[in-house]
């Protein structure tokens, strides 16, 4: 490949050097002139060289800045102007642009696939919701019709619970599909974490009073101000509902649940702790998997569909946060789910 601009500079350098040689040849007999001519020649050469190096260096910096942008994904691809078309760095940048285009098109292919998946999920869930609503109405009617018959009444109650489970599953799957496809943009605003947790507790009120659970909240902070994180509070509330619901399901009746909100310089950590029978060490990494239910209580927890913690994980991830768990079995058993968000 020929890079005209670099070639141009190179030719000028060659001419100057050649000029100096010629001068040597003609002026060899006049040493008193030779020295100043040489000095002048070298000064010109040095000036020109410095100019050339500066120019090349500037271009190298531009190329580096471009790479930087690609890496940090700012995506601004318009850097070179026409004047630099034939420079080697301009060519490197052009090739990088090509590469970036290829990468982007691959990414958009992937996004198309995810979007298709999400649309499919959304279609399926809407199609399921309508007959589900009908089923719910019928079971209600049956329930009233059966009146005195306890056995039939119980069966219809079971049917209603099953319908509720399907609804929960369908809604959860749809939300996960939305998050994974990236079609949902989190709208994050700085707001107190405590408010979000309180709202989550409010939605779980009936379950809490049904099991007579005592929920305690403790904020661990140095200064007396509210603990704030950037959050899409609707989504984060959903995540906390699922985490606390999980703790409620594992708790014995009339048990305690502790929620600790800890403020550190860079992050906010929320621990939700129940004092149920605990999860074994091998199971802990799996509890955030889709459709996973911890073995010990699988039979007892018929109302769970194993999607809640997976959804929580996706939501926390979308908040640049991490989710993890710790548990003990035996005496003083507990399970803690930690979510940590950078400020």
């Amino acid at each position, binding site marked *: 490949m020929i890079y005209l601009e670099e070639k141009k500079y190179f030719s000028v350098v060659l001419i100057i050097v050649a000029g100096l040689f010629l001068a040597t040849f003609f002026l060899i007999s006049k040493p008193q002139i030779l020295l100043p001519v040489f000095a002048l020649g070298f000064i010109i050469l040095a000036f020109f060289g410095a100019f050339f190096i500066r120019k090349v260096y500037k271009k190298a910096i531009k190329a580096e800045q471009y790479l930087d942008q690609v*890496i940090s994904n700012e995506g601004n691809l318009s850097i070179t102007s026409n004047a630099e078309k034939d420079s080697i760095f301009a060519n490197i940048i052009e090739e990088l642009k090509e590469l970036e285009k290829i990468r982007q098109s691959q990414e958009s292919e992937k996004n198309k696939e995810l979007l298709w998946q999400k649309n499919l999920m959304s279609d399926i869930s809407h199609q399921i919701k309508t007959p589900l609503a009908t089923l719910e109405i019928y079971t209600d009617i049956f329930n009233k019709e059966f009146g005195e018959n306890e056995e039939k009444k119980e069966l219809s109650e079971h049917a209603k619970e099953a319908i509720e489970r399907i609804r929960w599953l369908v809604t959860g799957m749809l939300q996960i599909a939305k998050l994974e496809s990236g079609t949902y943009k989190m709208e994050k605003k700085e707001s107190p974490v405590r408010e979000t947790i309180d709202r989550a507790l409010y939605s779980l009120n009936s379950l809490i009073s049904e099991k007579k659970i005592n929920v305690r909240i403790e904020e*661990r902070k140095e200064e007396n101000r509210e603990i704030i994180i950037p959050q899409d509070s609707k989504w984060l509330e959903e995540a906390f509902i699922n985490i606390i619901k999980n703790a409620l399901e594992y708790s014995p009746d009339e048990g305690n649940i502790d929620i600790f909100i*800890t403020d*550190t*310089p*860079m*992050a906010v*950590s929320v621990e939700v702790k129940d004092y149920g029978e605990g999860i074994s*060490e091998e199971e*802990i*990494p*799996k509890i955030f*998997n*889709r*459709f*996973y239910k911890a073995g010990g209580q699988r039979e007892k927890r018929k109302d769970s569909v*194993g999607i809640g913690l*997976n959804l929580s994980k996706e939501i926390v991830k979308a908040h*640049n*946060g*991490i*989710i*993890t*768990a*710790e548990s003990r079995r035996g005496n003083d058993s507990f399970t803690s789910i*930690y979510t*940590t*968000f*950078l*400020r």
Partner: protein
Amino acid sequence: MSFIEVKGLKKIYGNGESSVTALKDITLSFEKGEFVAVVGSSGSGKSTLLSLLGGIDSPTEGEVIIDGENVHKMKAGEKAEFRRRKIGFVFQEYNLIPVLSVEENIEMPLRLDGIRMKDKKMDELLDMLGLKERRDHLPEQLSGGQKQRVAIGRAYAHHPALILADEPTGNLDKATGLEIMALLQNSARKFSQTMILVTHDEKIAAMADRIITLSDGCVIGDAVVRNAVSEDEV
């Protein structure tokens, strides 16, 4: 070919009767962007594995190939340079240089390559690490969590493709440990870095995509934590 290939890795410390076998024939591979936790009791060989992966120590047998380059076949100088450019280390002991400021500690690996970090970049990094007000402080003026954040800054200054961490939260309280993990993971996700982390903390291991269990210098467990469980587990 995987991003990292470990083939028949063996490490014996000492020789003759007093020799100790730390690793026995380990073969593993790691993909780009993977977050792997290495667990096992103390003396199981997990820290040895990490130092062999990072080219800090040389194996008795076997090889480590990172991004197509055979780490232990390099000359000492090449190896040091490779380490500096491709790998970021985070240790339990923060290993900061006591006479250098926060900023200078972070810039250290780049300086060794004769590169100065641009002010804008340094500002961004310090901001991300919450160390903006402490840029001129010396390590002794910092808390444990802050020191570890400086160490993370140093490990990330050159955007390495691989992060090796040995009990990075070992000396920190629970909440600060989680904060450090959130920082590590956030950056790893952003730049799709491979992160291999040695820990005995189940909380930390539970965050990983894959958990490798070592015992007596052998791999006794290698579990990928998938997003969906297989049918027999449902």
